[in-house]
């Protein structure tokens, strides 16, 4: 079986159960230990940005104790990503399948689906589908609406929101796999990850590994945006060359300056590297970036990278949960520094900004500052000429152009 897998049978409307079964087949029931072994063999990693092996997470939750909870994370707080919304809208049954399979595998009696409060349409649709599926099972399934905000999608922020109504990350230790929702061991899995589980449960680990690479098996959803003819969500096999994906998306709409791979927690790569860029975690590492939640943005030559970065840096700084000093001050300094560089207004040196990036890494309760540090450090490397130029001469004509990087939900389901 080849592509598409997750996106098989998808069109503009939600797939109802009948169509879902005709496209994907029935969901077989597995013995818990066997499904866990199969998931481990598949090498499936989380698709929410962390890329953590699912089997390890499952093992940690099982060790955590009794009454575990499954949380399906559909908050999709990465602004330029729309894949999770797409899956939740178009293929809700696939997600419910995966959630149920995971719940059975770890012995959970409760599944919580999380999605952004600004998506009432998806909320209603999911609510309907869950209603149909919940009958006759000893499984409680509910939906929780989460507030906007970049750090809201963090595992512990979801737990915090669910239990106390505050959407900020919690101290770690303890991990949510030990103590999460209502202090019980909690598995938080991204929507796409859960959908992959549903397919592995049908077709097996060997099938899953037929596509992709040895180190990064399977397929992934990429949200492609920026200077391309057909932006949107695409399913690729891991290891696919970015150039090939671009062709599928109708090619670039103008000459490209650089690619942002991995969203705001990822990194920039010069367009010259395009022939060497392959989309998998292992193959992106030498370029100092990662696939993350599958966001790829093509920055055209007509855009001003400095203005884009400065604008993003300011937003990212404001998105801090405001709990940890180094994040608050560090991201603030970085944002102010990038703005000064853009305006040529007593700017800091690039080394100083790089130093700030080092100072915020690993010193917060969540990985938000680390992600921003990577985003900015890679920008310092890739856009050094433009940055130096702006530092001396100030704003350029392209600074006020309409931005390529989106900051918060202008989400249209493709």
């Amino acid at each position, binding site marked *: 079986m080849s592509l598409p897998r997750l996106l098989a049978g998808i069109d503009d409307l939600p797939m109802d159960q009948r169509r879902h079964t005709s496209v994907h087949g029935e969901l077989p029931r597995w013995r818990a230990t066997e499904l866990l072994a199969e998931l481990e063999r598949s090498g499936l990693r989380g698709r929410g940005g962390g890329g953590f092996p699912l089997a390890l997470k499952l093992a940690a939750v099982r060790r955590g104790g009794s009454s575990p909870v499954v949380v399906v994370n559909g908050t999709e707080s990465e602004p330029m990503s729309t894949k999770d919304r797409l899956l939740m809208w178009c293929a809700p049954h696939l997600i419910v399948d995966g959630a149920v399979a995971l719940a059975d595998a770890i012995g959970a009696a409760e599944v919580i689906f999380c999605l952004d409060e600004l998506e009432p349409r998806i909320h209603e649709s999911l609510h309907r589908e869950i209603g149909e599926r919940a009958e006759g099972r000893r499984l409680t399934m509910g939906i929780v609406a989460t507030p906007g905000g970049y750090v809201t999608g963090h595992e512990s922020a979801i737990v915090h929101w669910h239990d106390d109504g505050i959407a900020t990350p919690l*101290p770690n230790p303890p991990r949510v796999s030990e103590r999460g929702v209502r202090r019980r061991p909690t598995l938080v899995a991204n929507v796409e990850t859960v959908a992959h589980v549903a397919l592995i449960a049908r077709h097996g680990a060997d099938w899953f590994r037929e596509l992709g690479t040895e180190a990064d098996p399977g397929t992934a959803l990429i949200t492609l945006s920026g200077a391309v003819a057909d932006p949107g969500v695409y399913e690729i096999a891991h290891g696919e060359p970015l150039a090939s994906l671009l062709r599928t998306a109708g090619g670039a709409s103008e000459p490209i300056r650089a690619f942002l791979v991995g969203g705001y927690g990822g990194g920039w790569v010069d367009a010259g590297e395009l022939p060497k860029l392959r989309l998998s975690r292992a193959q992106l590492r030498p370029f100092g970036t990662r696939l993350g939640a599958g966001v790829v943005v093509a920055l055209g030559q007509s855009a001003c990278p400095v203005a884009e970065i400065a604008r993003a840096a300011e937003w990212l700084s404001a998105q801090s949960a405001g*709990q940890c*000093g*180094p994040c608050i001050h560090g991201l603030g300094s970085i944002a102010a520094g990038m703005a000064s560089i853009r305006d040529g207004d007593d700017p800091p040196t690039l080394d100083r900004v790089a130093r700030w990036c080092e*100072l915020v890494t690993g010193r917060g309760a969540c990985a938000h500052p680390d992600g921003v540090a990577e985003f900015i450090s890679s920008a310092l490397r890739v856009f050094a000429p433009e940055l130096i130029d702006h530092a001396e001469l100030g704003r350029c004509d392209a600074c006020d152009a309409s931005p390529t990087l989106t900051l918060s939900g202008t989400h249209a389901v493709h």
Partner: protein
Amino acid sequence: MRIEIDPIACDGHGLCAELLPELIALDEWGYPLIADREVPPELEALARRAASVCPTLALRLAPRHRAGQR
């Protein structure tokens, strides 16, 4: 023994850096930078005092070879 800081509780008071300059420095915003090594035996008593004196109880002492955070 290793020094760990709860980043949410830490308010940058800086008493820890006063007591243990050998292991703790303050960044430009007043927040602690911990040296990535074990507390040597001769500094253990001071480390305990630093944990006790922290106004927000953000500084903790962990036994050696603690598994990585986050």
